[in-house]
């Protein structure tokens, strides 16, 4: 095995499969390709790549089957290539255990950024998260944005912590309710939205140009700042 992180690309369209893996190689990754869910799974077991990039609609076993099968034995990050107008597919893939998605037509730099964000997920146990202009000290419950200290309630801090530890990745509404509210009965998407909008009002220096948290249509939220 080589030093570079390896990425398994599964897509039934040869044009996308080949050009995508060429771009990934150019960006410094090792690539393996497969044309459908069946060969994808076999190839995954054989090579154990650091990241899986899969299309959803494929002949034989589709992307959903592949995600479910891989998640039975592996926690390797999975990014889904979805088509526009298929929000339900996106959510189903995330529910099955995919970590992120890009929507065709995606730009290559965007995809590479998502790949980096997934590979960065190292599970480090630091108690202080640092982003561009934002420091979150989880131990002392202190949040500093620019020069000012941001006073957050317990719920808002829990929200911020959940999102910031998943920086660059989408967090589903259901995951937020489960993690921040312990799935307390009566907690709805609106509950989350109210607290999130309060958090964003306190956090964002310029509300008309959000730097940290954005809504991910029909999925939930995404923390967008790059760690520094």
């Amino acid at each position, binding site marked *: 095995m080589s030093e570079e992180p390896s990425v398994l690309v599964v897509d039934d369209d040869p*044009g996308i499969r080949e050009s*995508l893996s060429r771009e990934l190689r*150019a960006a410094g990754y090792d690539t393996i390709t497969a044309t459908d869910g069946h060969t994808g799974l076999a190839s995954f077991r054989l090579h154990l790549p650091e990241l899986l990039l899969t299309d959803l609609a494929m002949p034989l076993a589709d992307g959903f089957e592949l995600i479910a099968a891989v998640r039975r034995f592996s926690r390797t990050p999975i990014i889904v290539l979805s*088509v526009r*107008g298929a929000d339900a597919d996106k959510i189903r893939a995330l529910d099955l255990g995919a970590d992120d998605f890009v929507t065709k037509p995606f730009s290559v730099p965007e995809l590479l950024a998502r790949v980096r964000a997934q590979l960065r997920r190292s599970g480090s146990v630091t108690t202080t998260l640092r982003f561009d202009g934002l420091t979150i000290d989880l131990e002392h419950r202190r949040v500093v944005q620019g020069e000012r200290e941001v006073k957050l309630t317990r*719920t808002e801090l829990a929200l911020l912590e959940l999102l910031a530890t998943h920086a660059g990745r989408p967090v589903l509404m259901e995951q937020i309710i489960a993690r921040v509210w312990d799935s307390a009965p009566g907690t709805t998407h609106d509950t989350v939205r109210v607290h999130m*909008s309060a958090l964003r009002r306190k956090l964002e220096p310029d509300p008309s140009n959000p730097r940290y948290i954005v809504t991910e*249509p029909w999925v939930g939220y995404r923390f967008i700042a790059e760690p520094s």
Partner: protein
Amino acid sequence: MRTGRWLPAILGLTASAGVTAAYNYFFIPPVHTFRIADPRNWVALAAFLLWSLLVTGLVVISRRRAAEAERRRLEGEASSHVELLQQSDAFKTSLLRAVSHDLTTPLTAIRIQTEALKRHAAATPELAEAVQAIDDETARLHRRIDNLLTIARLEAGRFRPHPEPTPPADVFRAVRDSLPLVFSARPVTVSVDEDCPDAWVDPSLLLEILVNLVENAHRASPGGASIELAARAVEGRVHLEVRDRGPGIPADSDVARRGLGLEIARGLTVASDGWFTLENRSGGGAVARVELPAAVLEAVEERE
């Protein structure tokens, strides 16, 4: 219905009886009486009557057959019409999916390939510029196709908007991410009033609406002129405006001249239960306004 069915038969029988009597009266001696002197003439008269009845019968039967065939044809046509409609609905759906896949896949491949070209062209500024132009135009083409497919899906009932509380600032940010060229080519100011509520709209549709409007404003504006994006609350609704300093609203309503973008924006706004207006701006230029319902969020008590 019943009398209608038997009417031709009754008419035919009456006519047969009538002409037989007339034949007897005028041609069988003694003429001008209904009496018959020669017994052979009874045979002739009977044959005449028989012939007349036969013709009547044949006519009635053939008419019935024709009516029956016509009825069957209409029934068949109606049922096959319904079947055709159902098929065409399923057909539309699968056609849309196929068109979407078959147009999107090659375009995605082109965009990835362009990325490889960009890498190789980086050393030659002229080439790099050309490749960048290819990339930008492909992205624009892709967006147009996507917009048209979205409108087709909305019309076919295959896609219904999913409104959710959408912060205008998020959408403005997404517009900037979608149109880096416009934002680097000219000043674009963004303002969201502090008391502006979230809009109740499908965020992906609102993004497409605004991208089309900003692209349109960009095309209409002279170089260096700024574009303004603004969101504010007006009487419980959210007004999103794209203001430019271009030539204002064109006088004719020719879509070709006004551009597809405005029509797409209008179509998507209407599908989002919104209100679209385009007016001249004081001091020159145009204001495109999308009015949307505001999202209502119940206040939730903080759990400490």
